[in-house]
C-alpha cells in the first residue's frame, strides 16, 4: 500500500500477543499469496535482555522463538553505530524484520555515530577481532562481555577471533565457517536459556559443515534453563568468567 509500518513493542517480554500475527501472517504473507502481496517492509523494534533488576518480565531474550520462522528476519545490534545502520537496513528491507535492541545499552553506550543515513548489510556477520585459536560468536549486549573475555584470554596467551552475528536469520554461515576452519574451535554465547537457544542452531550447523576441522566440541555459554530470576540474576547470566573458563577448556581439550 506504499507505507512502511514500524512497530514498537515496549519490552520483548510482551511480544507474545503479537506472535500469531508475526508467525502466521507477516512471515507467510508473501509466500502464501504467490508474491502478489507482501508486508511492505514491516519492522518491529523491541528492547530485550537483562537490565540488572528486570526479573521475569523485563529481561527476556526471546530471539530463538522467532529464529524458527521462515519468512522473517531477526536482527540484533551490539551498539549505537550498529543500531542505526542495522535499523535503517531493516526498515528498507522488503521483508518483515524483528529488531531486538539491547535495553542494557540504552543508558550505557556512548559513541560517535555518523549523522547521515547509512545502512549496514543484513545477513552479514562482522569480525570484530581476528584470532587464530578459537572463534567466539555472539550478538547484542553479550558482545561487550565476550570482548572482555577475549581480552583476558589474550593475556593468557589465547588468540580469539570475535564475531558479531548481527542477523540471526538468515544467518551468515559463510563467515563463521571460514573462521572455524581457521581456528578449529567455536564458542557461542547468549543470554537466552541454553536449551533450544539460537546457539544450538549455530553449533549443529558448524558441526555439520566443519566436523573435520574441529579440535574441540562446540561450546555454549548461555543463560540457565530457568525463568529470568531477580535476586539470582548474577548466577543466571553468562558472565565474563564463565566465558573465560569455557575458552580455556576449549583450548585445553
Amino acid at each position, binding site marked *: 500500500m506504499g507505507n512502511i509500518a514500524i512497530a514498537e513493542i515496549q519490552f520483548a517480554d*510482551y511480544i507474545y500477543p503479537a506472535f500469531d500475527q508475526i508467525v502466521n501472517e507477516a512471515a507467510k504473507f508473501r509466500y502464501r499469496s504467490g508474491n502478489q502481496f507482501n508486508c511492505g517492509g514491516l519492522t518491529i523494534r523491541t528492547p530485550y535482555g537483562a537490565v540488572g533488576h528486570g526479573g*521475569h518480565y*523485563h529481561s527476556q531474550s526471546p530471539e530463538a522463538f522467532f529464529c524458527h520462522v521462515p519468512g522473517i528476519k531477526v536482527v540484533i545490534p551490539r551498539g549505537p553505530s550498529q543500531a542505526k545502520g542495522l535499523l535503517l537496513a531493516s526498515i528498507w528491507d522488503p521483508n518483515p524484520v524483528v529488531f531486538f535492541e539491547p535495553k542494557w545499552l540504552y543508558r550505557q553506550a556512548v559513541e560517535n555515530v555518523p549523522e547521515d543515513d547509512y545502512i549496514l548489510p543484513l545477513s552479514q556477520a562482522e569480525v570484530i577481532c581476528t584470532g587464530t585459536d578459537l572463534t567466539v560468536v555472539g550478538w547484542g549486549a553479550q558482545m561487550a562481555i565476550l570482548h572482555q573475555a577475549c581480552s583476558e584470554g589474550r593475556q593468557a596467551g589465547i588468540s580469539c577471533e570475535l564475531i558479531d552475528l548481527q542477523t540471526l536469520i538468515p544467518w551468515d554461515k559463510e563467515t563463521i565457517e571460514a573462521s572455524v576452519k581457521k581456528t578449529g574451535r567455536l564458542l557461542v554465547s547468549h543470554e537466552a536459556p541454553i536449551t533450544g537457544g539460537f546457539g544450538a542452531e549455530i553449533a549443529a550447523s558448524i558441526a555439520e559443515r566443519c566436523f573435520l576441522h574441529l579440535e574441540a566440541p562446540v561450546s555454549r555459554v548461555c543463560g*540457565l534453563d*530457568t525463568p529470568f530470576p531477580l535476586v539470582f540474576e548474577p548466577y543466571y547470566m553468562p558472565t565474563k*568468567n564463565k566465558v573465560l573458563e569455557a575458552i580455556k577448556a576449549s583450548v585445553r581439550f
Partner: protein
Amino acid sequence: MGWRLPLRTALWTLRGKQPKATADMVRELSHRREVYSAVPCHLHIFPILKRLQSSEPERACSQNMDEEMNDFMGRKVSYSSQMCFIPEESTNSVPCYRLLSTHGDLLDPSSINELDKELCIEMYRKMVTLQVMDTIFYDAQRQGRISFYVTTIGEEAINIGSAAALNATDVVFSQYREPGVLMWRGFTLQQFANQCYGNEYDLGKGRQMPVHYGSNELNYLTVSSPIATQVPQAVGAAYGLKMDKKDACAVTYFGDGGTSEGDFHAGMNFAAVLGAPVLFICRNNGWAISTPTSEQFRSDGVAIKGQAYGVRSIRVDGNDALAVYFAVKNARKMAVEEFRPILIEALTYRVGHHSTSDDSSKYRSVDEIEYWRTRRDPVARLRMFLQSNRWWDDENEDLLRQDLRTQMMSVLHNAESKKKPGLSNLFEDVYDVIPQNLKEQEQETQAIVGKYPKDYPSDVPLD
C-alpha cells in the same frame, strides 16, 4: 458480618419492584441504557429484556415457520424495513454510582442507618495504612534500598472498598496495583517488605521484582507483569468454582489499558457464555502509563462494553469507598447466586507515576496530578465522612499515622537485614520436580561461584 443492603440497591434485585414494561417505557429505557426486568407477556416483542431476566437459555424453536423470525442465536430477532444504525454513543454516558459527595457527605443522609461504624473505621484505617506503606516504599526505592516499586496512591478506595465486600474464599486475580486487597485479607507490612526485598522470607523466593506479591493462604494469586493475562485465568477459576458448587466467586482487577488487550475480550466472552461467577473490576484511572483514556478507547469508558458481551455492568465512583463497597457486595451476590459475570468500572485517578521507572510529569500536567492528589483524595474523603459523624478525630489520625510510620521503619530495617533465599531456589520450582539438566546446571553454577566468589552477591547463601 450482618450487613443490610442499602435501598439504593442495583435495579437488578429480582425480588424487588418489577414495573410492568409498556412499549413506550421500554423504548425510553433502552435509550437511556437502563433496563428493568420485563413481564413475560412482552418478551416476544422486547427480546433484550427477556435475555436479561433469567439465566435460562431460550428455546430457539419457532412454532410457525411462516412467521419469518431469525432465531439462530438463542433469541428472536425481528426484521424491520427502517434502516437504523446503532449510534456510536449514547446521549448520556453511563451514570456513575456514588454514596458520598467529594467532601464526604452522605448523599442520602438516612442511609447512615445501614452503615456499620466499625467496618467503616476499619476500612479507613486500612486505606491510611496502604497510603503510608506506599509513600515509604516509594521513598525506599528512590534511596536505592529496593529496586522497584509501584504505588496505589489515589486508588485506595477501590482496593479496600472492594476487598471488604468479598469473602476470604473468593479467589483474587490482580494486575499489580491492588496490594490493598492482600492487605485487607491479612498480608502484613513485614510480608510486603520481605517480597520487595526478595529476602529469605519472601513467599516468592526472591525470583520476581517488587510488588509481585501472592499468597495462597489468602487466595490471592501471585502477580505477573503482563497486562490482562489474569483475566481469562479468573474466568477459568470461576468456572471451576461453579462446577464444584462452591460458595465463592473469582475476582479479577485490571486497568483501563488492560481492556484493550485480547485477553480482556476473551475473558468477558467466555465468562458470559459459561455463566461464570466472576467479578471484572476495572480501575479506570485515566492513564495507561502515558496513554490517556482519550487515546485508549472511543467508547463511553468500560462499563458500556459489558452489554456487548451480555455481561451486566455498573460504573461506580472509584474514589468513594462506600460506593465501591456496596457495588462489589451486590455484584458478588449476583455472581454467586445467579452464576453470571459482573463488570464493575470504578472511575478514579492514578495519582502516582506508573512506577518508579516513570516520570509522569513528562506527559501530564503537574497541576492535574496535584488537583487529584489534594482535592479528590479518596482517603481524605472517607475521613471527612467519618469525622463529620464523630467516628474519627484528628487525634486518632495522628496516632495512626505515627504508629504506621514507626512500624514501616522497623519493617524495612528488618527486611533489609535478612539474607536472600538460598541459591537452590534458582533451580527449584521450574517444574514440580527438578529435571536432570537443571541438576547439572546447579552443579556447574556452584563450581563457578566457588572459583569466582567476587562475581556474586554476598547475601545469597549457597545452599
